[in-house]
């Protein structure tokens, strides 16, 4: 017995260190790699200067455009995405996998390619884009264009996360509700939705955060009005790195806030 436990112990060590310690050190390096640049960003600009630049009209305009468009995008994605997520979770159709593939496609597609794809439909030369523009609702270089780009890239998050949340709701509870005389819609509203709510909230948060950071497709579809990521790019190209800092910090703070939401009211999808 003694020899066996000795061999067992020797396997958990590396160069005399316990394996868990080794794991912690290796993981620690990665964590430092995440955190150090963030800290460095805050240190590279004096706090006073950041606060002063926050009231800059380009910063305020970009922040307004981003918050507004990301809110609209997250809403649109939720309105259309929740029914789809419910269908994906509950349907026994053999098409669910194919439909799920379509949903996930924008996630794996490079955003700039997404932008090009959208331009072929909504661009000023394409029929829909042309019609909309002549009706006074241009779909490029407009808030509508920003929302189209963000929704394309960010909406899969709410569909995929809400699908998992719906799947986590015990079907027996839905059977019970219907057996008590309640139809599909009443059952979904009173039983499935409330029980799936933390997961749905997580999906909406992820979609909002992704929409806030959307750059590639937005660049192609709607350079104006500038969202925060586009403004960072413009400031960096035209005026240099220093001028890109304030908006970057603002975006960073919004990301941290989204994380906070995921860890409180919403179900953290990674836990």
């Amino acid at each position: 017995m003694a020899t066996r436990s000795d061999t067992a112990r020797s396997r958990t060590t590396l160069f005399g260190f316990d394996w868990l310690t080794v794991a912690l050190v290796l993981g620690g390096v990665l964590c430092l790699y995440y955190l150090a640049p963030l800290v460095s960003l805050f240190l590279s600009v004096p706090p006073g200067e950041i606060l002063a630049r926050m009231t800059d009209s380009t910063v305020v305009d970009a922040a307004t455009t981003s918050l507004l468009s990301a809110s609209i995008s997250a809403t649109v994605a939720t309105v259309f995405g929740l029914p789809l997520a419910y269908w994906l979770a509950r349907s026994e159709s053999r098409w669910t996998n194919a439909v799920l593939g379509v949903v996930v496609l924008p996630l794996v597609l490079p955003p700039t390619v997404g932008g090009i794809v959208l331009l072929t439909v909504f661009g000023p030369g394409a029929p829909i884009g042309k019609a909309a523009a002549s009706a006074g609702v241009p779909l490029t270089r407009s808030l509508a264009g920003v929302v189209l780009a963000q929704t394309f890239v960010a909406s899969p998050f709410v569909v995929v996360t809400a699908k998992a949340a719906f799947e986590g709701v015990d079907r027996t509870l839905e059977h019970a509700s219907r057996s008590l005389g309640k139809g599909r819609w009443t059952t979904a509203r009173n039983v499935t939705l409330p029980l799936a709510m933390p997961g749905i909230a997580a999906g909406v948060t992820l979609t909002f955060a992704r929409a806030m950071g959307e750059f590639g497709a937005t660049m192609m579809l709607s350079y104006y009005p500038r969202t925060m990521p586009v403004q960072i790019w413009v400031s960096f190209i035209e005026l240099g790195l220093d001028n890109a800092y304030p908006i970057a910090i603002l975006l960073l703070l919004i990301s941290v806030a989204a994380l906070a939401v995921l860890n409180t009211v919403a179900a953290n999808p990674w836990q």
Partner: protein
Amino acid sequence: MTLVVDEVYKSHGAFELGPIDLAVDEEVLSVLGPSGCGKTTLLSTIAGTVTPDAGTISLDGLDLTGRPPEKRGTVLVFQDGALFPHMTARENVAYAASSEGRVEELADALEIGDVLDQRADTLSGGERQRVALARSLAADPDALLLDEPLANLDAPIKRRLRDELRPLLASLDVPVVYVTHDQREATAIGDRLAVIADGELLQLDTPDEVFSHPATPFVASFTGSTNLFRGDVVEAGTGRALDWNGRRLDAAIGGATIGDTVRFCIRPEYVMLASDETRNSFNGAITRQVFEGDGYLLDVVPDGGDEAVRLALSPPAYERAGLDERDRVRIALPADAIHVIGEGGGRTHETPSLSE
């Protein structure tokens, strides 16, 4: 109000249910069978959560077969209650209740007044089932379906709820189908008893009749008639007797004729300790004994035989006899307790072994 299951058939992979015919009046029908026998599938076809491949379900003459679960008037009570965990017990009961007064009334009837304002996911198993029952009754069912509602409860709570359920279900005046794998529950609760194995309805009768006259060897063993033997008919007509491994047994042999080999069973409770003069008695040795709390089970192998006869003795009877393991005893199989059964059943059913 009559619930009619007409030629209902459902297949799922290699498993087949039915075709099953049942008619349930305003009574409690217990459906008894081992797990995986199809009794839950049967219940689901009535409730509408499973669509049968063939056959119809009707209630009060109204065809329910194609209707969604919410438009059937059938209410299903689930094994673990299936309470909505994000609601309180009160909200659960009120979910389909016609009025707040009805909620209070049912809370009184099921003694859940104290826990009404607790969240459903904090309730104990027994409380959960009480709330689930109240919730299902609040929906004013035209037929009530229960799927092993007591299966996951501790023994004392189970027994108490079982005793309360019997009068409650009988007072509903609607068809009630009560599915269980527990023969005590099935007999205590049902006016009639349907035994199902491998998707096939083997017997449908009063609990008394099923227990005293099992239709097939499977029904006999599943309802506790664990002494199952084969014998040859040696006298028919007025005499009527079997030859069992060279021993003569007086017995009612039904329609069998001389020379037939038949199966017969006798419940362990009916096997007696006997004196020399008793009919159908013989000597044997105790090979095994088990104390089960409420009684003793003894396996006795008759001299010269190899099949053990099991007898059940109450503790006082056991003590009076002053028995010990390996003792020799004389036992009797009373003629009127011996029941001759057919081989029965189209499909083969595995018979539970005697050691169970």
